[in-house]
């Protein structure tokens, strides 16, 4: 099968290595330019099943802020990002929220949970 060269930038760490990836169909046959093994893993995933961490906010009632930031505990498939965001928009929590609370379980059937990034204490009047 014909080989194809793809240039991509590894986003696993702030170093941002430029990878020269040789692909045959959907198979990675060679990765160059990476500074560590994670670069190879990234290239493989990028060719077969690209994923991204997603962070957004969901509404919360009665807390010190009207929103709580949330994140996917693991990267989710890239094509599902906007579907996940639409789901997140439907959620409304009630304070208090604890850091690490599961906000959406097994989101879109990915097997991945969406977690609260911080505590949102109850809004109180006195200090």
């Amino acid at each position, binding site marked *: 099968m014909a080989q194809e060269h793809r240039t*991509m*930038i*590894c*986003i696993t*760490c*702030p170093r*941002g290595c430029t990878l020269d990836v040789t692909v045959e169909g959907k198979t990675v046959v060679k990765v160059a330019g990476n500074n560590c093994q994670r670069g190879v893993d990234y290239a493989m995933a990028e060719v077969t099943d690209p994923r*991204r*961490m997603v*962070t*957004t*906010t969901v*509404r919360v009632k009665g807390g*010190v*802020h*009207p*929103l709580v*930031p949330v*994140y996917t505990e693991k990267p989710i498939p*890239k094509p599902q*990002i906007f579907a996940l*965001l639409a789901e997140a928009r439907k959620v409304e929590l009630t304070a208090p929220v604890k*850091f690490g609370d599961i906000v959406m379980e097994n989101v879109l059937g990915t097997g991945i949970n969406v977690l609260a*990034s*911080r*505590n949102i204490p109850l809004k109180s009047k006195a*200090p």
Partner: protein
Amino acid sequence: MLKQKYDVIVVGAGPAGLAAAIGAKKTGAQDVLVIERAQELGGILQQCIHNGFGLETFKKDLPGPAYAQRFIDELTSLHIDTLLDAMVLDVTSERHVSATSQWSGYVELDARALVLAMGCRERTRAQIALPGTRPAGVYTAGTAQRFVNMEGFMPGKQYVILGSGDIGMIMARRLTFEGAKVERVLEIMPFLTGLTRNYVQCLQDFDIPLQLEHTVKRIIGNERVEAIESVQVDDHRQPIPGTEEVIPCDTLLLSIGLIPENELSRKAGVALDPVTGGPFVDERMQTNVPGIFAAGNVVHVYDLVDWVTEAGLLCGRSAAQHAIAERKHAGRRVRMKGGDNVRYVVPHVLDKESLAESRQRLQMRVTTPIEAPVWVEVMNGDERIVRKADLYARPGEMVSIDIPQSAYDAVQRASELTVRVVRR
């Protein structure tokens, strides 16, 4: 309850301040106070809801607030005092701190060591002299970030972002997530100013166009931004005529750099490096003013929070060491006071250990003349440490007396010594 004097006071509760407070407490500072202008701890991290924090410190890819939460929890478990919603107004080179807050009102506090961790602020339109009208709809990227991520308010629907710094690129993605259209990111330099990974995961992933060597020539719109006119620039960053393009948008975000926040540092007499915009510091993060330390974006603008934490911890340890030395030294110091007929004594304080080295001379002036033989006496309360005879005492003639090395033990018991000149 606030104390009057702390071993270490930290100004600012971002990652630098949090780490400094933790570092100071763990090194043995007895009481540590963190003063923060916002209503909560965490600093800028609370609005940086994106991931990418803590890859070095925790080997994990955490959102900003989650990274901050770990340090907030540690701070709480170490019983470090905090004063929130409190603005530090002034600090002196003697580490006297004035602050005002809704809860405590105006307070004045003292610190044996002070840590400056005020972070930085964003460059605004005024600092780049952007021509055109002054309609609503021009924000710094960080302000927009706060609106969208913490207050739940979208400043517009259609955006142009000036500057390819990390905050701008991260906001481009964030606004896209919230249903807005980001028309363009413009960068005047021929290269990206933020991290390449942010170009990939914030712009490329969502087909947001980036134009290098382009800038905003003019803002169009009266009440509200209606469009901007972009232009290409040459190697000398001068606009190339004929390359203008009108890009319709209702909001322009500026992501054009950060400046260390050093109003307070200046007031304390801290010398600033014109290149970084932050204080000159030594390897312990001490500024030119002894006992005043600095860490984080207030020193120079970081791109990785892990390094900010590292600098904060180091700074906190140094501050604690300074406070502990100061405290120890304070126990070794005896105040010298003028007693009967003595107007003043120099030196004003004496290090008790100095007597281990040599005798110590005290000099003074009397208040009223005594034309008769006198005793010059150094007293610890009722206990006489040493005395000497003089034939008379006159205000115009300085009197002196030596504390001999043999008085070492007696002086150790004192916290204050009085000198008097009395008739024999």
